[in-house]
């Protein structure tokens, strides 16, 4: 996957701003495709967090349940982002738990918002299975769990 410099373009920006020595500590979970997963989770942490903060500050009284759920979703995304980026089996377990909660959340809240729409006068990140966000909240935990399974730590336990 990594090609050496002859086929790469000029890297003046890398030389000017890049880290001087070595690489940052990471494992399989947070390298390669995992970086992409972490970035998508970081973007969702940011957008869900900013949106829920805005909703809670401006109109908490009008729709407390969806706004609280938005804040909870944002917190889950933050935990998942950090756990995905950190090396080691314990972070792998925490990441799996957070992404699992995310999947249950988007399925549960999505179902609830379809069956009992009067509970959701305002949208939350997970209502209607993440419709407002192009259904990415529904796809993301499935991709996340598949990636965590592929990149699970070796050693200790024999691979299944």
């Amino acid at each position, binding site marked *: *996957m990594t090609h050496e410099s002859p086929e*790469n373009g000029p890297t003046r920006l890398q030389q000017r701003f890049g880290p001087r020595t070595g690489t940052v500590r990471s494992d399989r979970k947070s*390298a390669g495709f995992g*970086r*992409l997963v972490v*970035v998508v989770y970081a*973007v969702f942490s940011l957008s869900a967090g900013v949106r829920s903060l805005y909703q809670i500050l401006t109109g908490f009284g009008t729709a407390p349940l969806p706004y609280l759920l938005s804040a909870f979703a944002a917190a889950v995304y933050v935990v998942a982002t950090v756990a995905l980026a950190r090396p080691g089996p314990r972070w792998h377990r925490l990441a799996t738990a957070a992404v699992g909660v995310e999947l249950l959340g988007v399925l549960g809240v999505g179902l609830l918002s379809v069956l009992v729409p009067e509970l959701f006068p305002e949208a939350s990140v997970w209502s209607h299975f993440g419709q407002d966000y192009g259904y990415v909240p529904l796809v993301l935990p499935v991709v996340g769990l598949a990636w965590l399974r592929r990149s699970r730590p070796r050693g200790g336990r024999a691979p299944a």
Partner: protein
Amino acid sequence: MLWGYDGWFWAAVLLGALSFLVCAVQAVRGRRPDDWTQGSVLLLEAFLLVYAVGTVVMHVLGPGPTGSALEYWGYLLTALLIPAGTFVWSLVERSSWSNWVLAAAGPVVAIMVYRMNFIWYYQ
């Protein structure tokens, strides 16, 4: 105003699409991030800084957004973080996957500017 959106929006679409194309092509070719792909997100960042200054000027001279100014600035500050964040990422992760991360900045910035256009004129 073209199809209901202003020059800022179309400039963001153009720059975002160019940046996406450059980064996606380099990622497909298996290249590591270089000046072209990293530079394209820095160009997006520069555009957003000009956009932010333009917003301040338009706030002072005109009536400001028809929608919520708080929401508008929330989007703008978030948008400002995105190209900068992907750039920092590409400095650390030196694989072709980083070019996909860089490629994401363009479309995301275009969508954020679309949302800001909507809040400014129609909300």
